């Protein structure tokens, strides 16, 4: 195969370098690894395009001749404008080179090198990729040899159509297919894997590393687990997708598999008990078989099981003596790390054999502990280590107890974990073995050895801490039998507590900076890794340490877990040998360490694969028909061309915007030429072109405060006002129940009572006062007493209120009587007349002694007065009121004079 360097720039493919250089002296595999495809992302294409444009512009500018200033150009208006108005200045060469360099750098960094492209770039050949599913469910349909044979037949048929690559569900590696034999050998050697596969994930990753493909063929069965989540139709834009269906005899689906395994032993049990749920797919006849459990090839137990007719599952129980997996010597060291292998052997035929094996981590394996403690008496309650021994045993440890050390003590390798309880005043040699010190000395400078972990605890609160200190020093500090001087002064727990940190021990428990509540201190010998946990309290439930019998085992368990001597609870349920649902998440990971890979290869078959459930036919891609002369027209057509519409739209938008810009520039030129000497004026005129005048609208809504009437409308009134004047009144009033900001933005406000505008101190609301001063027009539809009126007036116009001239009857020449209709008087009611407060040269507050709106609303009724005004009169008054509210005394303005005179004539 010839190496080739390919660059994809958007859709264009550019071949760089010599087309097919001969590298015959390089081995084929090495040549393959030299191939790479560079697949730039879209931004990279943009960067490249912009760089190209920049280069072109730069070239154009550099190409142009000298530029010479000629002042009279200012007056030139030649018809044919040779060059655009924009002045291109040649960029400084260094800056430009920097820009180009950075652009190329960006392009380089945005390129993503890809490996494993084995298909050389041959535009005239179809590129076909075959994905081989090797998930366990396929083994229910055909043997691996048959599978390989089918695939080689397929390759033989496809080889003439185009260039073929293939990959398997084992790994993301892509192979170039040269012959069917090659493929057959590879498939047979790989075999089926035990993990399940999600085709969607697998094919997505494959295509990512593969680049462009014209046709994708998926060799698989119709297993629901594999096909779920694979939306193959989205690939049709880029390629044909087909399926080589390998499903056979889907009607027979007898399969036996492990449903669930549970470790059933109680703590401290002498046996290992397991409960195994065995399930099957069919529920017809009764079935039976055998269940075996193996460990490192050695059979531990065997039982038989039976599934009754019409039942789909059964539970088998297995039990074997714990010593078979313990320290009996029958199994090799590291037995805890190797899994238990459960195997079922059904008597009836079984479609899928891969799921007849199940691996779990061995559980319940015990560790030995050497406990050295004097009994201190005959009765258990007097034994300082009794509770500790029980707490350790229920965690699954095998406790070997010694009352005192004989000689140097046991060898360190005999026990991985030592607990020394001392301080009884009978001498340090009695509980502190010299063998550990000797072992530590031996490894101090040579190879590192793993020495046991040691707990050192006082037998009671009143222990002889000097002995404990001597033991601690013997284990970690001194190398001979001497007693360090610092231990001579240790007489109490508090002294022991202060000494330990100065010996380099780390505090466990208690507060930071306050060692008095510390539970223990951890010291460590760096060379030998000998670790001593020196407890400061006795390891027993006593009131002095507030440890009770219930808390004590939990404390011991937590310390064991923290020290790593006891697996955390979450690790106990067989993790490490999971059911692997998707090989792309496990097998395909390149960073797997060898041990993890072994486990994954031996991982358990997921239940979904064991179920052998088929997905529906319509959800699957078209089938590949094995006839060699199958017409390619039967394949679903892929989209050959990209949809040009977005590009056309983009071009249209560009053209339109360029045209608009050109028009604006032209207009600007026109204006600035004409008003060249009056730049500000020309800007104003130019801007005025674009400022569309807002159409003037004379619209007003009745804004009512505190009317609280649902469905209050003024349809007929609005119609009348619109017919009579050029003002449009909204039929629906704007109602407010308090003086909100929106209400304050209205030009007028109708109220029935002043309560809503008044504060608690009988004064006007500050907001209302501001609104009135700012130009608001308040209409009160109520007969107010003189006192009320004065109170109201004194806040807005104090001087007038004091003089008593604030609220006055409206004179006959008031604008309210002549603003639209010429009225002779305003209708009184119950001897109450209209009054107005004049402020700031306008009518600010108007008091109507009756409900004017009540008589004008839809379905309204005349006011309750001795001589109620008729409707026409009310209407005219209202129209005048609208005029005053909107335009105050507009007739004062001389500009209206000609129009008024014209009307008067």
């Amino acid at each position, binding site marked *: 195969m010839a190496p080739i360097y390919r660059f994809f720039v958007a859709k264009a493919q550019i071949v760089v370098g010599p087309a097919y250089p001969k590298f015959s002296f390089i081995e084929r595999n090495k040549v393959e690894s030299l191939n790479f495809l560079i697949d730039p992302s879209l931004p990279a294409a943009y960067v490249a395009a912009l760089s190209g444009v920049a280069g072109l512009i730069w070239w154009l500018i550099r190409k142009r001749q000298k530029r010479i200033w000629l*002042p009279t150009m200012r007056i*030139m208006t030649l018809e044919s404008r*040779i060059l655009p108005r924009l002045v291109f200045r040649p960029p400084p060469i260094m800056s430009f080179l920097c820009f180009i360099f950075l652009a190329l750098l960006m392009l380089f960094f945005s390129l993503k090198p890809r490996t494993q492209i084995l298909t050389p770039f041959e535009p005239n050949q179809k590129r076909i990729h075959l994905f081989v599913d090797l998930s366990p469910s396929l083994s229910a349909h055909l043997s691996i040899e048959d599978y390989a044979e089918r695939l080689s037949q397929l390759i033989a048929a496809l080889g003439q159509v185009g260039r073929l690559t293939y990959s398997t569900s084992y790994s993301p590696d892509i192979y170039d297919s040269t012959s069917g034999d090659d493929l057959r050998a590879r498939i047979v050697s790989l075999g089926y894997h035990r993990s399940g596969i999600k085709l969607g994930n697998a094919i997505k990753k494959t295509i990512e590393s593969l680049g462009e493909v014209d046709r994708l063929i998926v060799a698989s069965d119709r297993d629901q687990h594999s096909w779920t989540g694979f939306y193959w139709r989205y690939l049709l834009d880029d390629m044909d997708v087909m399926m080589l269906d390998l499903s056979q005899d889907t009607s027979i689906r007898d399969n036996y598999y492990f449903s669930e395994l549970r470790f059933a032993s109680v703590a401290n049990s002498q046996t290992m008990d397991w409960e195994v749920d065995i399930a099957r797919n069919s529920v017809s006849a009764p079935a039976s078989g055998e269940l075996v459990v193996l460990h490192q090839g050695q059979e531990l137990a065997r039982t038989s099981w039976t599934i009754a007719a019409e039942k789909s599952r059964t539970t088998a129980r297995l039990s074997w003596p714990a010593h078979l997996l313990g320290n009996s010597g029958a199994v090799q060291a590291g037995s805890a790390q190797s899994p238990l292998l459960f195997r079922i052997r059904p008597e009836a035929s079984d479609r899928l054999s891969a799921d007849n094996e199940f691996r779990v981590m061995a559980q319940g394996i015990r560790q030995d502990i050497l406990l050295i403690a004097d009994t201190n008496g005959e009765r258990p309650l007097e034994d300082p280590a009794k509770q500790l021994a029980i707490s350790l045993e229920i965690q699954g440890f095998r406790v070997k107890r010694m009352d005192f050390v004989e000689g140097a003590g046991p060898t360190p390798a005999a026990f991985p974990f030592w607990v020394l309880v001392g301080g009884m005043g009978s001498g340090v040699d009695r509980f502190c073995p010299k063998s550990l010190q000797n072992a530590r000395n031996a490894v101090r400078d040579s190879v590192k050895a793993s020495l046991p972990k040691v707990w050192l605890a006082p037998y009671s609160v009143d222990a002889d801490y000097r002995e404990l200190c001597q033991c601690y020093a013997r284990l970690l500090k001194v190398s001979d039998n001497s007693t360090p001087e610092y231990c001579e002064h240790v007489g109490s727990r508090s002294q022991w507590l202060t000494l330990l940190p100065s010996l380099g021990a780390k505090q466990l428990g208690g507060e930071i900076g306050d060692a008095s509540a510390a539970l223990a201190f951890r010291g460590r010998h760096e060379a030998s890794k000998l670790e001593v946990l020196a407890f400061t309290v006795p390891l027993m439930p006593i009131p002095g340490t507030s440890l009770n019998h219930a808390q004590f085992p939990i404390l011991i368990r937590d310390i064991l877990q923290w020290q790593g001597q006891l697996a955390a609870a979450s690790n106990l349920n067989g993790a490490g040998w999971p059911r692997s649902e998707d090989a792309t998440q496990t097998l395909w990971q390149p960073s797997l360490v060898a041990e993890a890979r072994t486990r994954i290869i031996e991982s358990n078959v997921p239940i979904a694969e064991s179920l052998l459930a088929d997905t529906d036919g319509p959800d699957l891609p078209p089938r590949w028909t094995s006839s060699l002369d199958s017409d390619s027209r039967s394949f679903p057509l892929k989209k050959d061309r990209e949809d040009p519409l977005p590009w056309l739209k983009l071009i249209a938008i560009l053209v339109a915007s360029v045209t608009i810009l050109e028009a604006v520039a032209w207009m600007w030129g026109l204006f600035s030429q004409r008003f060249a000497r009056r730049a500000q004026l020309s800007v104003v005129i130019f801007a005025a072109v674009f400022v569309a005048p807002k159409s003037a609208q004379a619209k007003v809504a009745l804004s009512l405060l505190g009317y609280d009437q649902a469905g209050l409308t003024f349809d007929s009134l609005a119609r009348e006002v619109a017919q009579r004047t050029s003002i449009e009144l909204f039929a629906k009033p704007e109602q407010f129940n308090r003086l909100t900001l929106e209400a304050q933005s209205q030009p007028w406000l109708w109220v029935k009572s002043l309560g809503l505008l008044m504060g608690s101190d009988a004064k006007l609301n500050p907001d209302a006062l501001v609104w009135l001063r700012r130009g608001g027009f308040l209409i009160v539809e109520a007969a107010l007493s003189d006192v009320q009126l004065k109170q109201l007036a004194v806040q807005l116009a104090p001087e007038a209120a004091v003089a008593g001239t604030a609220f006055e009857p409206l004179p006959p020449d008031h604008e309210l009587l002549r603003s639209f209709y010429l009225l002779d008087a305003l209708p009184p009611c119950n001897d109450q007349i209209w009054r107005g407060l004049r402020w700031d040269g306008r009518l600010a507050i108007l008091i109507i002694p009756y409900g004017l709106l009540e008589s004008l609303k839809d379905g309204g009724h005349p006011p309750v007065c001795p001589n109620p005004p008729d409707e026409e009169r009310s209407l005219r008054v209202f129209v005048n009121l609208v005029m005053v509210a909107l335009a105050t005394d507009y007739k004062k303005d001389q500009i209206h004079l000609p129009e008024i005179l014209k009307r008067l004539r």
Partner: protein
Amino acid sequence: MALMRPSRLPESSRAYTPGDPINLIDWKAYARTDHLLLRETRDEATARVRIFFDIGESMQWPREHLDGMTGLTSKAEVASRCALNLAYAHHRLGDLVELWPVLPGQLQTDQVFRPRSGSDILSLYDRLLQTGFAAEEWPSLPMSMGASERDVDQVYWLGDALGPLDYLASLRKGRLSVMVHVLSSLELGIDWIEQNDCYFDTSQMLKEYQGFALLSDDAYQKRLRKWQSHIADNLAKLGGEYILVSEQSSVAQWHQFIGSLSLKLR
């Protein structure tokens, strides 16, 4: 101070011809005879003369702007020389002269130089001659603020009419106005330009043409003539004079022009 207030004496009367200032028409005579007569007066004392001369950016052309050409005289130098000459001539006639230089980057004229004697003008001329008529020389001169907006008797504008200032507005302030249109001979005749070079303008219009566009069909000359006649028309509407001057205009021609002005004025 009495001299500042001219008392006018009638000098002669003649028939009105279009272009004459309207304020000189003898309306009483018109009422009597129905003929428009001009009653030309003469200031007994002095005339106020204001001379604007543009030495802005475009007037600095072509000095140092054209490579390959040496010995170029900028338009600013021509305008300065003419302005000083005019000032001297008027000063000799006893007029009050104000010199208003339009400096580069200036959008309104406010600095004014008022020579009090003929030697002032001569020493200024010497000084400018030494510095090569550089525009930078002007701010160092003893100038005063020319805030006076009072109309004057005669206004000159010397410049290329390409600067940012409105020459017509300045000329309108005088009862009589004269536009001395100063252009370079390189602007008047463009036989020196190259076909493929680009010729541009630095103003906000940013116009740019290639040489062949200017040369083809005599486009440049046509446009230039149209522009000159447009300026001359504007002056005629004001009742003013227009004269085109370049560094190649003859001194005799200039003296003739000055002489005709003096005749006309007096």
